[in-house]
């Protein structure tokens, strides 16, 4: 009975999940499949950025830096002989730990100050990655990072990651995990306190929320998932370079997040899938695409601060309003 009710309430999400699971059979083009895999991966990164920027209201621009820490962590550890399944959580934890250390000083500042200081940190990471040649391979990066070791699952057997389908399921599983944790987090009391900090930090402090601890926690969790996404990226791509930690990547996610809709769970995922696809379709415009997206970013932040998802909800409410008006 409970399952029936669950299905009735959530049929849309269940349908989406089934569609996502059967997707590998409907895509034949390897290139398109790669775009889907990257979409999932960047969804994880954008979702984590959403936690600190969308829900907690602190614009961290070091996000690609932490993505890079995760990527370099997995690359160096797996090349050193460690299993991917051990290297990944270790690297994500490393990103979270560095996030904690960086969060302590930077989160004391607010607004644009925080954005600037985190951006400085992001740039430092990519400079270090480019110049610490013995450790990171300099601007040539690291090549030949092994794929994740095959997993043996009871009943199904060995699950390898040589094929794109295997890689897709790996990324999808992590995306699902991230989404689940984010969903639990933002709908909990803790998530509400994050939003209270975003809406009015002084007020949140005066009703007994430890705003600094809240911001640190949000930052650390966000960076954990950024590191996680980076680690998977390194293993699937096989090569990384300082551009893995570049500011452009952060800006890309920022565009995904804001156009998709900040402070919603669906927004970042929609952004991370829809915008790269639009980018592909606009291939003939070459460099002009970036001008369009820059302009879109400005238009969205001025007129639709809640992005596509926000626009969708507003539209839905209006239609519903019209409908009830006509009935009443």
């Amino acid at each position, binding site marked *: 009975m409970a399952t029936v009710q669950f299905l009735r309430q959530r049929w849309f999400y269940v349908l989406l999940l089934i569609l996502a699971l059967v997707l590998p059979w409907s895509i034949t083009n390897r290139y398109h499949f790669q775009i889907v895999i990257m979409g999932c991966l960047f969804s994880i990164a954008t979702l984590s950025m959403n936690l600190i920027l969308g829900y907690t209201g602190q614009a961290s621009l070091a996000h690609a830096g932490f993505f890079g820490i995760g990527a370099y962590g997995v690359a160096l550890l797996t090349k050193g002989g460690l299993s991917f399944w051990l290297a990944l959580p270790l690297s994500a934890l490393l990103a979270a730990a560095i996030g904690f250390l960086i969060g302590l000083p930077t989160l004391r500042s*607010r607004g644009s100050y925080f954005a600037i*200081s985190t951006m400085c940190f992001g740039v430092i990471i990519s400079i270090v990655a480019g110049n610490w040649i013995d450790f990171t391979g300099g601007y040539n990066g690291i090549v030949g990072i092994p794929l994740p070791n095959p997993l043996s699952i009871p009943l199904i057997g060995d699950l390898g990651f040589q094929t794109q389908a295997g890689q897709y399921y790996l990324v999808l599983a992590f995306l699902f995990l991230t989404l689940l944790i984010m969903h639990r987090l933002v709908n909990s009391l803790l998530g509400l306190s994050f939003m209270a900090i975003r809406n009015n930090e002084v007020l949140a402090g005066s009703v007994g929320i430890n705003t600094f601890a809240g911001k640190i926690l949000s930052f650390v969790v966000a960076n954990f998932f950024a590191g996680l996404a980076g680690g998977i990226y390194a293993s699937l791509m096989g090569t990384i370079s300082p551009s893995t930690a570049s500011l452009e990547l952060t800006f890309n996610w920022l565009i995904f997040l804001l156009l998709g809709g900040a402070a919603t769970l669906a927004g970042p995922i929609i952004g991370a899938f829809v915008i790269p696809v639009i980018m592909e379709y606009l291939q003939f415009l070459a460099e002009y695409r970036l001008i369009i997206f*820059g302009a879109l970013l400005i238009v969205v932040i*001025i007129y639709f601060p809640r992005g596509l998802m926000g626009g969708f909800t507003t539209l839905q409410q209006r239609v519903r309003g019209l409908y009830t008006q006509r009935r009443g």
Partner: protein
Amino acid sequence: MLGSTYAIVALGLTLVFGILHIPNFAHGHLYMLGAYISFFLMTLYGFGFWTALVSSMVILGLIGMLIERIIYRPLQDKPHINSFISAIGALIILETSVIVLWGPQGRRIPNPYPDIVEWLGITMSYQRLLVIVTAIVLIVLLQVFIKKTTPGTTIEAVAQNREGAMLVGINVNWVSSLTFAISTATAAAAASLVAPIFMISPTMGALLGMKAFVIVILGGLGSIPGAILGGYILGILEAIGGGYLSAAYKDVYAFGALILILSIRPTGLFGKEVS
């Protein structure tokens, strides 16, 4: 020399960031655009160095007013972070436009004063000396403008109290435009001055813009002497750090210093406490 450039660029930014409270993150990119405009005026239309510099300042001033009107004014009463994101959109547009129009390769402006001067045992190219002297002249002029003329004092009035300025009949929007125009014009001046020494490229503004923010925060928001001092401190820090420690990590010092300073004083070195 580097310090002088930093000081002028930071001066422009502190006007906008400190006085109008607009985190104009595209400042470095406007600087880059200024260098390009000078370059094309000189090479395509045969302008002299000084006429190109002044024309570039005027053009950039107009562009600055346009940007303020289109991008920042609608976000005036929103959280700062919205303006910041808007600025990122602006800088993406600026950088890509320059790449599309003029290509990603670096270019060099012919050096108008290639001679070398020797004075008290210091050897220096004429152009470098020129940068230092012009920087000082610009700084003094700006200071005189803000302290002694009516438009300058209205800028200060708006900085001190926006509502109060409105009450006594100051057109705040006009002041915003003016401040923005001055700020971008100084960026163009700095860019045109150093362009003959360094290469110009579409990405030259990105790091400089960030450093300008570092300086403004170092020197205290909206403080003009602070910005000048901060500019010279950063220039010297980079020269010493790059020379004695490691040139590859030259840019790390500035950003590291910023994180360090913000961790001790979240509102900057000479910044006032914000409520």
